[in-house]
């Protein structure tokens, strides 16, 4: 039940573990540690990117998978990864298939200990260097449905070699740290989703400003799935955070009618309250996720190129 996991986090379940050494090692392992793209600088300012809609266009149940243990980092990273993957297909029109929802278990199984919780830096390293799998039945393990005991069980011994070999098929080529909200807007307007780990919590009940205010503290990681800086519906910038607890909260009352349907448990937060997500130093943006080659082509490439449609 969602209530159980909420209580566990309220009682201090360490789902998100900050590991500074791991983060520094990760940053040192790639040329460009931070997402600072000069050619798209300020492209997200004053705009909105509601990225979850692209994920839900392929998978109506996206972001409804409810975590049952402290594996939030693998849920946050999976959702960011899948959204970036969907944006490559629907926004950038790259010829890939969505194929299936991503799996969380291999990432969580790579956390390096038998307890609960994970460092996002460690998840990033695994997904960049080893790769990821989807919700499918593989020979060494059945990942068709979320089963927390699989990732939990791999714990200290790590992900089995046979599974890692399968992960190698699909990798995330670029995972970079975000330093500012402005950088994150630039990333999102270009179709890159993120996730972040922080010690902060949000109320399950929206306030009179039509947002979920900060309240309490969770050591938690969640996917960052959109923002609206147009001030059209809120007089300030808002961010949209996808939690992985199912329908744990009350949705905001005035949901813009022109918006796509919200995923269950979505947190709508002000820029001020959101800042902890980038200030924590564990806000990771996903780019260049290896896609799945299409099984069937939509056409041979002529449609739309010789007509006005």
């Amino acid at each position, binding site marked *: 039940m969602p209530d159980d996991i909420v209580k566990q986090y309220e009682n201090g379940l360490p789902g998100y573990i900050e590991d500074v050494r791991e983060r520094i090692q990760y940053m040192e392992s790639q040329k460009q540690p931070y997402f600072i793209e000069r050619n798209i600088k300020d492209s997200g300012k004053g705009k909105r990117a509601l990225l979850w809609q692209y994920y839900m266009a392929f998978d109506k149940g996206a972001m409804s998978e409810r975590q049952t243990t402290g594996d939030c980092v693998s849920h946050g990273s999976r959702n960011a990864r899948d959204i970036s993957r969907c944006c490559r297909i629907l926004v950038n029109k790259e010829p890939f298939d969505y194929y299936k929802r991503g799996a969380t278990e291999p990432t969580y199984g790579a956390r390096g200990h038998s307890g609960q919780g994970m460092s996002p830096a460690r998840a990033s390293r695994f997904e960049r260097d080893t790769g990821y799998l989807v919700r499918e039945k593989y020979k060494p393990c059945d990942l068709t449905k979320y089963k927390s005991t699989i990732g939990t069980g791999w714990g200290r011994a790590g992900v089995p070699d046979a599974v890692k070999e399968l992960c190698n098929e699909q990798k995330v080529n670029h995972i970079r740290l975000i330093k500012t909200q402005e950088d994150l807007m630039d990333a999102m307007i270009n179709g890159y989703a993120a996730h972040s780990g922080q010690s902060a919590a949000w109320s399950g009940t929206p306030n009179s400003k039509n947002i979920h205010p900060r309240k309490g503290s969770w050591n938690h990681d969640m996917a960052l799935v959109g923002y609206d800086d147009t001030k059209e519906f809120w007089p300030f910038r808002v961010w949209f955070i996808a939690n992985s607890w199912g329908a744990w909260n009350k949705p905001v009352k005035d949901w813009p009618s022109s918006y796509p349907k919200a995923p269950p448990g979505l947190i709508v937060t002000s820029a001020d309250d959101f800042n902890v997500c980038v200030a924590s130093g564990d806000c990771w943006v996903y780019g260049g996720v290896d896609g799945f080659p299409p*099984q069937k*082509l939509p*056409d*041979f*490439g*002529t449609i739309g190129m010789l007509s006005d449609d």
Partner: protein
Amino acid sequence: MMKHLLLVAAIVYAVYSFSPSAPAPVVKTGPVADALRSATPQDKQTVASIYESLADITQRDGGKRISTTAEWRAVHQNTLGLAVGGTDLVGKYPGLDVAVEEVIGKHISLDNVALSSVVDDLVAACKEVAASAR
């Protein structure tokens, strides 16, 4: 992606290297010929040149650089975009895109497969489009 762009650039260059020639005095049939029934000789030549060049490139590459039909589709799209995108040819002949699809569809399926397994069929498709257009 870079290698695909180079291929596309080569095709576009080849397309514009052909000088327009007089149309053959033969009444052609088939979806592409039907779609281009009212076309000017120059437009017919442009379409024919694109597909002759695509046939040539596809044959010479043999699936080495363009390894799957999905990649070939992207090359095809980019070729059309660079060769005729933004010109008045786009939208001028309703049904031309569907007609080209129909001809290619006679030769290969929409399955994403290794290009090496369908090179000859794809080359034949491109040549048929070119011949019908001319």
